[in-house]
């Protein structure tokens, strides 16, 4: 009986030893130089990679990538709906960053024994967590945790600065047919835009809608009566939005934002990419919402 127990203990000990050795080996590999060839199909993650010093490891990006400037010289291998699997394989990457919905591509790449990193947009916490994770996956653990701390500090600074101020009720518009109030898309009560607005000291008038985007009717816009209309435009993909375009809002003269001329137009792709520039975007929101605090 005793010998059987001893055997069992020995067996467990050996199994444990093998397991520990395996994980420590895996960890040492992970903690080393990391993958030398990264393909990123997600612009937000491309930005993170460059921000944590993994830029030189990136060998190809998606066709929507525009930032930082270095990506312009890199080969483009498709995007969310049309990833060019053949070219991705031909580049012999050792890490491919895919979007969460690209499960077919992920399966295909895993079949080719390629490591993948899957990601989905979420809130600010998702972005910060992803920076940490991609840092670990690419061997830039230190840089990524430094970046997360500095972003967190900047966000906290914004939050502190607007603390105690009256929080205006805001509609955050990110899409609209030029010159009219048709096809207005605004941030709902979920996602990074909503959370950035919250940090910047604004109350989202659509906080009660549990979706990332809302298409409010004109009636709803009139009824919610926002104090501030914050329009963001990613400069890359826009229509002309001049003074005459902001005039479209003047039809809603009973809305406090229109009455008090608090319709703000912010431009730049950094405003809508949930990457390392989100602190900068949050600061821009705060400056628009609380100009008196940022004089």
């Amino acid at each position: 009986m005793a010998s059987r127990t001893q055997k069992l203990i020995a067996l467990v000990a050996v199994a444990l030893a093998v397991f520990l050795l395996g994980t420590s080996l895996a960890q040492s590999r992970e903690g080393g130089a990391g993958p030398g060839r990264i393909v990123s199909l997600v612009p937000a993650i491309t930005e993170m990679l460059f921000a944590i010093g993994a830029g030189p490891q990136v060998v190809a990006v998606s066709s929507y990538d525009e930032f930082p400037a270095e990506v312009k010289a890199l080969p483009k291998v498709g995007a969310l709906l049309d990833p060019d699997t053949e070219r991705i394989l031909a580049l012999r990457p050792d890490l491919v960053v895919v979007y969460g919905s690209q499960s077919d591509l992920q399966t295909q790449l895993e079949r080719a024994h390629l490591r993948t990193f899957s990601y989905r947009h979420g809130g600010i916490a998702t972005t910060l967590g992803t920076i940490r994770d991609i840092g670990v996956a690419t061997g830039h653990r230190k840089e990524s945790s430094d970046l997360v701390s500095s972003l967190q500090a900047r966000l906290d600074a914004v939050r502190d600065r607007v603390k105690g101020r009256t929080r205006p009720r805001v509609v955050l518009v990110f899409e609209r047919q030029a010159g009219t109030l048709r096809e207005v898309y605004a941030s709902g009560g979920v996602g990074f835009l909503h959370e950035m607005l919250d940090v910047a000291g604004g109350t989202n008038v659509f906080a009660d809608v549990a979706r990332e985007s809302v298409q409010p009717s004109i009636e709803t816009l009139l009824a919610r009566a926002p104090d501030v209309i914050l329009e963001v435009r990613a400069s890359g993909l826009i229509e002309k939005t001049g003074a005459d375009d902001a005039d479209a809002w003047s039809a809603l003269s009973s809305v406090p934002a229109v009455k008090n001329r608090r319709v703000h137009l912010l431009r730049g792709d950094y405003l809508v990419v949930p990457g390392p520039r989100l602190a900068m975007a949050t600061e821009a929101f705060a400056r628009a919402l609380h100009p008196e605090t940022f004089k």
Partner: protein
Amino acid sequence: MITVDSAGADGTPLPRRIPRSSIRGRLTATLLGFGMVALATCALAPLVGTTPISLTRALDPAIPFEQNVDAQIFFVARLPRVLAGALVGSALAAAGVVFQAMLRNPLATPFTLGVSAGASLGAMLVIVFGGALTFGSFSTVPAASLAGAAAATAVVYWLATRHGHAISTSVLLLAGVTLNSFLSAIIMFVQYLADFAQVYRAARWIMGDLDIGGYDTLIASLPLVIAAFALFAWLPSSLNLLSVDKDAAAARGVDVPRAQRLAFFSASLATSAAVSLAGPIGFVGIVVPHLVRLLVGVDHRIVLPASALFGAAFLVACDLVARTILSPVEIPVGIVTAMIGGPFFLWLLVRKS
């Protein structure tokens, strides 16, 4: 009761010419009935919505308009929307009647001959490539969709009249259906070149939207709809004969090529105006005419105006559902018309067989 007007092919006897005096009474009664329904719907719809408003406050001249939220909701949000619904609904329903009669096909819709695909392509091109173009407060999307609709109409007409001066309805139908698929393929290609936001906006445009937020676009499409309806006034008697048999119509003194041209261009004009204003809202042009025929019979002198009135009421009611049922989120009106229209049409089909 004959419920559909494709009767000619299977040898149903021609409707007899009813003397004018006897139709007048029926016409008056029917129009009065449908007119009341349309008026009541259009009068009630602006009073209902996601936000409760007080009509007395909305109409109170003592409160300045800039401070009167009720008045703004009534006059800026709801009234233009209801009027657009009425205009688009009546244009699509009447165009549906005309196309079904002219093509002798109960399944014809205002969109069968490629008008909507042309309009969609026009709108899509502006959404994807022409974003920088605005003229003052006018958006270029309605203008582009109107141009696309006109181009599609011209191409189909040219194809159908190539072999002689009369329209060949079979060529018209085939050319229209083919053009529809061809343009849809181009639309897919344009969408493929676009970015996500544009694809989403384009897809949303196709679902239809009556929230026009002002009277500018409404006033711009009004002359087109009025012109189309003025042309419709010439049609009913010849449609009665055309819908049954072309040769019999000719034998009874109908100038068939002229009547067909008139029908084709007036219905295309009404459809183009409707689509450019609100996007291609489906099912109105097929459900309303069939429902009206169920109620009043097949005489186009009654069916056409009654469909126009009932189409207005139907679309305004569908839009009321669209803007209130999931508040504060809104359903595209085209989804509501399809949800109501699809099952209804299937019921009609089963009931008939």
